[in-house]
């Protein structure tokens, strides 16, 4: 299947997802479909529930209610072994802080190769060749393959995290503020890279951020969250240029113009 065919079945379906922390609402009644090759942005201020939602979607948190279906399989009722296997093959998770997503004591090549070895790769030469290929794709020089991530800049660490995640050819990528801690110039490079990868690999992406500029450039569709609820969703540029909900209007009008 290539990235440009548009099957009519969603890759990922979320229905009425609800998670509370005691009396406090994490996220409530969230539903959406994500199709192959689609990028969904989730925006909202701190505490809006977007991170809780992402954790529930990626299986890091167990929601109180609702359904999550990936490729026809119920990810909430599947065995943990199966879910973890999914998480290291078909899914990927890019953390805001690369330290959370990388093994800092392991070389760049080892970091990229880990997922391959986890699914049974046992040929050193092949693993290394694939790691080199992926370092190249995220614009890290091949001669850095044996360096540890702590010798890398923040932008390089983030790109390494992306390579490490994408090496097994996942179909669904969760991103939590992937450009969060980076300089603007580095952000632009990363965004460009992500766009290319999403397009070339036909990835489906769920990206959580508070940066409206990032979603405008990356996301096809946008969900706006406030107080745990989705207050508005639609086509990204439509939501940003013609916001319908008061909160979205406030959010959009609060962005500093440069």
């Amino acid at each position, binding site marked *: 299947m290539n990235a440009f065919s548009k099957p009519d079945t969603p890759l990922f379906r979320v229905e009425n997802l609800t998670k509370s922390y005691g009396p406090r609402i994490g996220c409530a009644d969230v539903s959406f479909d994500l199709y192959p090759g689609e990028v969904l942005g989730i925006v909202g201020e701190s505490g809006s529930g977007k991170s809780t939602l992402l954790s529930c979607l990626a299986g890091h948190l167990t929601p109180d209610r609702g359904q999550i279906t990936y490729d026809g399989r119920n990810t909430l009722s599947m065995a*943990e*072994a199966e879910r*973890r296997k999914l998480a*290291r093959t078909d899914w990927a998770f890019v953390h805001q802080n690369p330290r959370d997503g990388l*093994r800092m*004591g*392991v*070389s760049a*090549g*080892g970091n990229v*190769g*880990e*997922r*391959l*070895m*986890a*699914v049974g*790769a*046992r*040929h*050193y*030469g092949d*693993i*290394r060749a694939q790691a080199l290929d992926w370092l190249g794709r995220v614009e890290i020089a091949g001669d850095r*393959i*044996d360096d540890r991530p702590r010798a890398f800049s923040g932008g390089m660490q983030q790109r390494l995290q992306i390579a490490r995640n994408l090496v097994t050819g996942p179909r669904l990528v969760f991103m939590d503020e992937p450009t969060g801690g980076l300089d603007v110039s580095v952000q632009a490079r990363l965004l460009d890279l992500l766009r290319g990868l999403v397009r070339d690999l036909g990835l489906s992406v769920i990206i959580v951020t508070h940066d409206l500029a990032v979603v405008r450039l990356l996301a096809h569709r946008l969900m706006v969250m406030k107080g745990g609820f989705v207050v508005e969703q639609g086509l990204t540029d439509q939501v940003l240029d013609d916001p319908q909900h008061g909160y979205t209007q406030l959010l959009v009008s609060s962005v500093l113009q440069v």
Partner: protein
Amino acid sequence: MTDQAYNFAYLDEQTKRMIRRAILKALAIPGYQVPFASREMPMPYGWGTGGVQVTAACLTPEDRLKVIDQGSDDTTNAVSIRKFFQRTAGVAITEKTAEATLIQTRHRIPETALTQGQILVYQVPIPEPLRFIEPRETETRKMHELEEYGLMHVKLYEDIARHGQIATSYAYPVRVEGRYVMDPSPIPKFDNPKLGGNAAIQLFGAGREQRIYALPPYTDVVSLDFDDHPFTATKADHGCNICGSIHSYLDEVITDDQGGRIFVCSDTDFCAERQQGTAA
């Protein structure tokens, strides 16, 4: 002469029963780390408290005990543990591998092939082979549960990337019966091939980490490796300067400050037997 102030083999009977239950469970699930309530022993951690507790739980008055440290019967650690059991259990002792019914070891497997009915007890400092890259115990237990062992190969990958070959030369990880990945304790990888298919019962005790694991006789044990970097059991490329053996694991001994050195068998009993054999 048994010191009458102590119970047989130092530990009280309830504790020994608890340890025996852990050993039985470990034997039933080869390579699986069974938690046990490790006791304070009259020796510091790192001196073999785990092995000593396992030995204490296995000893009977009829046993003949051998204790080795790095293959040698006469190093401090071996001597003090042997004396400990002479005093608290009054069991017979021996330096001959073939005559021992129970051998407690640190860092070696005897050169002489073990036989059915013998028990080999290893002292283990860090039982968790995944600890190298995953510090969280909750996570490593989950990884064992779900057989997520990719990380072990990351460790070997790092070795090759850094040194051009798998430089891990001791505590070389193994897969037991195609299921659990196990740390064989810091034995040289030269000894790894002796882990599998061994006629003796092999028990591993980690006192500080409170874990017991085991290999029942004739267990299938495979050293992890890559297709293009296969496992090799290595030793110094010399013969023993004393007995002449070219098949035994050797210690390098510095003899002067002029760069003089000799290589001798690390297994002192094996070396002595060969010398007697040569002499006879």
